[in-house]
């Protein structure tokens, strides 16, 4: 089995007093094991709903979501699903439950009823992975937003998930905190083989992914490598997304007659490409 998550013809509605809002309709998507997927989309595009369907926090009204082949509608295997796919949310303050960092990280494993030594070992290892081991005895409210978010990630890692879904984990962080969290996520994927689904507004974070999806009104409107997706800046703008300044620069220069290959994102690649074009 190659896919860790499979959406088969999923439909999901919100109902309120006035009307039903269809968020997803006949939605299909496969997430490969070990992959790093970034999902982009403006507010209200259905990103967060999609995330919560991935580990059974929301259940589809029709169709099915399979996690390692297990249907998320199967109540008996719900714990199995949630320990396979961990979730990290936007606001770090809403995700921390204990008054000491290591106790917070231990919360999940303790609830699994694991032996003491196993919990100790998992907590230490998770804190080391997110570079927060030296803060294990600190009080979470004394930490910065980025540090708190890494504690939240450590709490998820301590459950030994195969996949982590992160719903705008850096939206409330400053640039330094943002970069620390992104570096941590990247490391989990590359060094620990954990499948990552990252939902974000920050386009430059897409460069870390091996697959980028653009979601608009509950539909996937683009699906490809970062280079493929970012080579269509007009399309991204029309989808209500921002493009990185680097991509915009290349696009504007190309309009004025300089020649580049498309979809360049990083600062170094951009500078190298411009240097080559100027020296032609």
């Amino acid at each position, binding site marked *: 089995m190659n896919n860790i998550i499979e959406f088969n013809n999923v439909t999901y509605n919100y109902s309120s007093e006035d009307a039903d809002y269809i968020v997803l309709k006949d939605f299909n998507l496969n997430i490969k094991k070990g992959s790093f997927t970034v999902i982009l989309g*403006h507010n209200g595009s259905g990103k967060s709903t999609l995330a919560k369907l991935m580990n059974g926090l929301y259940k589809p009204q029709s169709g099915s979501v399979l996690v390692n082949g297990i249907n998320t509608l199967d109540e008996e295997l719900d714990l199995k699903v949630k320990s396979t796919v961990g979730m990290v949310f936007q606001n770090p303050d809403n995700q921390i439950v204990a008054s000491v960092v290591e106790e917070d990280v231990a919360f999940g494993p303790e609830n699994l009823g694991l032996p003491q030594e196993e919990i100790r070992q998992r907590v230490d290892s998770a804190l080391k992975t997110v570079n927060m081991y030296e803060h294990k005895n600190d009080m979470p409210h004394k930490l910065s937003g*980025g540090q708190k978010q890494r504690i939240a990630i450590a709490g998820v890692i301590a459950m030994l998930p195969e996949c982590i879904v992160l719903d705008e984990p850096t939206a409330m962080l400053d640039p330094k905190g943002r970069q620390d969290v992104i570096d941590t996520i990247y490391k989990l994927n590359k060094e620990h083989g954990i499948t990552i689904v990252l939902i974000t507004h920050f386009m430059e974070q897409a460069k870390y992914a091996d697959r980028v999806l653009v979601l608009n009104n509950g539909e996937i409107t683009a699906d490809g490598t970062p280079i493929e997706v970012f080579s269509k800046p007009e399309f991204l703008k029309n989808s209500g997304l921002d493009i990185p300044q680097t991509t915009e*620069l290349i696009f*504007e220069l190309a309009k*004025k007659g300089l020649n580049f290959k498309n979809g360049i994102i990083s*600062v170094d690649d951009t*500078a190298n490409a411009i240097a080559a074009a*100027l020296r032609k």
Partner: protein
Amino acid sequence: MSFLEVKNLTYTYSKNTPFFNDAVEDVSFSVEKGEILAIVGHTGSGKSTLVQHLNGLIKPTKGEILFCGQNIWNNEKNISSIRSKIGLVFQYPEYQLFEETVFKDIAFGPKNLGFSEQEINESVLNSAKLVGISQEYFNKSPFDLSGGEKRRVAIAGVLAMKPQVIIFDEPTAGLDPIGRNNILNIIKNYKKEHNATVIMVTHSMEDVALLADKVLVMNNGKKAMFGTPKEIFSDRNKLLSVGLDVPLITNVLLKLNELGFNFESNIITVDEAVNAIINCKGGADNA
């Protein structure tokens, strides 16, 4: 005389206890009528504490705040009139809505300032229009709106008091690009219509480059730099040392200079960069 001037401002948390801590230390700067001042700095650098002084929410431990030359704490009983002239929009203002209807929420400030019925109606209509909230929303509960709409209603509530200085603490945090552009346009339009002064705390160097006339860089409660965006962004090493960076576009040109080109260090927007690179290309072609 400057429009708004901060002189040697110091604020100490938990003063006279063993836990005392200088959140703001000896900060001075000034801003003129109609200018946009951006305040940047990493988390915990004292930005939010600093701006809460500017409309008298916090009283400085030392130093003074002069508005049109008058110390705002000269007449302590009068401090609420300062708050009508210097408005403050907090971080995540959408969590501060509380009235039954959108109209009442926007009207709350003007009402408290003793505006007449007609003035209230007028200012609510104007500020709702400015933030793009249509009159159909006036009788709705603010809690039934989307996150972006809530934020705009909250901003309208401050604009309705027609402040001469308006302070925004991270107005675009957590918004998507459309929401962000909305808010930035509201700020620009209010400034233009009222020749108001805008003070904006932000993490986005790209927004600073596009909008600001002046930039105050805070680090550990102290003023680290003060100047125009071009002046600030031409010293990348100093910015890096306080945990910040220049806009992405400036980094591309610095990298090009490392590769042997000779671009000016004060290019901070995409348009400027496109022009500079095309000129460079033209120069090379003609040579």
